[in-house]
């Protein structure tokens, strides 16, 4: 588990550090769980997974990022994570999550998250997946997030190592007055990967801001549908949908569906969606420095997904 964690970009020394809050879950077993002052992690094992409650106390400023590790090492299995997050008013925390399934042949990983960000709180969540090369995995992360007045929710989901398999990502955020939501999803589809991404931001409070960003690269016969939705429902709400899908295979299919809606005459929501092949000039720029074409494409793809 630790080896796989490191392959996914994790630092195993962090898991041994006392002043870092952490949670390590394999299949439906909690292997490690450490609180720190101001942050509490409660868990309950079930037949198919683990329920997690993460609470950040009011005003708590957590100095070091919290580390979460969810994984399943056997070739087959199912892991369901029920996550309840409560970041109380004026708290501040960063969470780094690694989801590792290095041997998956027939694995389902589901995560249902219910997240409440309090007034003036900031919560940053970065989730990185590491999959093996078999591709027999379904990843189904769902999140419903509410951000109170002046709160900030920043999430990044990255699935660019190993084969995606089937990804069904769905995140919905409601922002109240002057709240901020920044959602980023990055995925690299190859083989017959099937990627579906839905990012929804409701800007319901005056001065709320939201950004739904996605970066998807597709090769071989991979397919992706990205739906970015932003709703400006309050005065001075500002939202933007930014979707880029690059197709690097003759049989890959990319679909982008940006939806922008405004119901208040002082709100403004914009979108940009770009789908196409990798820019030839970018490739030639790197080739002119001596890289062969495959390496040049790889550098560009890694940059987009970084």
């Amino acid at each position, binding site marked *: 588990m630790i080896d796989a964690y490191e392959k996914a970009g994790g630092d195993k020394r962090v898991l041994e550090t006392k002043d870092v809050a952490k949670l390590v879950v394999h299949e439906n077993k909690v292997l490690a769980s450490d609180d720190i002052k101001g942050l509490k992690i409660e868990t309950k094992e079930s037949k198919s997974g683990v329920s997690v409650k993460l609470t950040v106390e009011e005003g708590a400023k957590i100095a070091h990022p919290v580390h979460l590790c969810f994984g399943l090492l056997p070739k087959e299995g199912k892991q369901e994570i029920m996550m309840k997050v409560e970041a109380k008013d004026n708290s501040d925390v960063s969470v780094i999550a690694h989801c590792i399934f290095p041997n998956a042949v027939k694995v389902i990983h589901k995560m249902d998250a219910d997240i409440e960000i309090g007034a003036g709180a900031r919560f940053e969540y970065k989730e990185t997946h590491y999959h093996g090369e078999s591709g027999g995995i379904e990843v189904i992360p769902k999140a419903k997030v509410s951000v109170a007045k002046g709160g900030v929710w920043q999430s990044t989901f990255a699935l660019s190592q190993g084969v995606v398999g089937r990804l069904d990502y769905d995140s919905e955020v409601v922002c109240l007055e002057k709240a901020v939501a920044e959602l980023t999803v990055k995925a690299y589809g190859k083989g017959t990967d099937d990627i579906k991404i839905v990012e929804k931001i409701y800007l319901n409070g005056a001065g709320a801001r939201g950004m739904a960003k996605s970066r998807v690269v597709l090769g071989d016969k991979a397919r992706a549908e990205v739906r970015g939705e932003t709703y400006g429902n309050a005065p001075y709400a500002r939202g933007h949908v930014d979707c880029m899908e690059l197709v690097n295979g003759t049989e890959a299919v990319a679909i982008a569906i940006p939806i922008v809606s405004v119901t208040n005459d002082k709100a403004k929501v914009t979108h940009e969606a770009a789908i196409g092949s990798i820019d030839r000039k970018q490739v030639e*720029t790197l080739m002119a*420095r001596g890289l062969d074409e495959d390496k040049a494409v790889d550098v560009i793809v890694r940059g987009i997904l970084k």
Partner: protein
Amino acid sequence: MLEVDKLQLKLNGKPIINDFSLHVDKGEIHGILGENGTGKTTIANLIMGTNNYQPTAGRMTFEGQDITKLSVSERAQRGITLAWQEPARVEGLTVRDYLSLSSHNGQADQIEQYLLTVGLEPAQYMDRDIDATLSGGERKRIELASVLAMRPKLAILDEPDSGIDIVAMPRLLNGIIEMNKQGSSVLLITHSERVTGIAHRVSILCAGTIIRTGPAAESSQWFQKNCLTCPHINEPTQ
């Protein structure tokens, strides 16, 4: 070092480059001076092999080897490179990454020196992405730094002065001279006589062909007298 012999290019049946011949000596800064639309960027692409341009006739040799049909990478691996008039922007690629891969993993302090040479402070730029957040002038100077980092045998610089402000221009010209001092020959393609002032020889380009080659000062005078007043757009006057 570089020999270009009677190169021709037709696009959609229209001649763009006509019997273009040129030689660039080892250690030389060779300027190509021409007005807009004379084929300057097309020549840069033909020599580098970029933009899918393949000559319809003629050949190019570099250090005695025919490069006419080589890929961009193969030409670069032989020591030729190109700095574009409008360099590409690559999301997620930092200046540090770009200079490092250009130098084929050169030392960090050397890489920083290349930025300083073109007048950019490493601490402010190394970790920035080469994306739309850079101004055109900043991007151009980073492009020149990446060519310096590569230490090519021949650097083709397409309009290196475009988008460069008057304060940064001396830094840019200094960078090109430095590149030449560290051993690179330079093919300097521009419409600016100020830029070709640092060249050893300058060729005048008109309608896709070289109509005159000589020392920089002489060529500049000839260009002013004949090209700037020429009523025939892209038609050779002699």
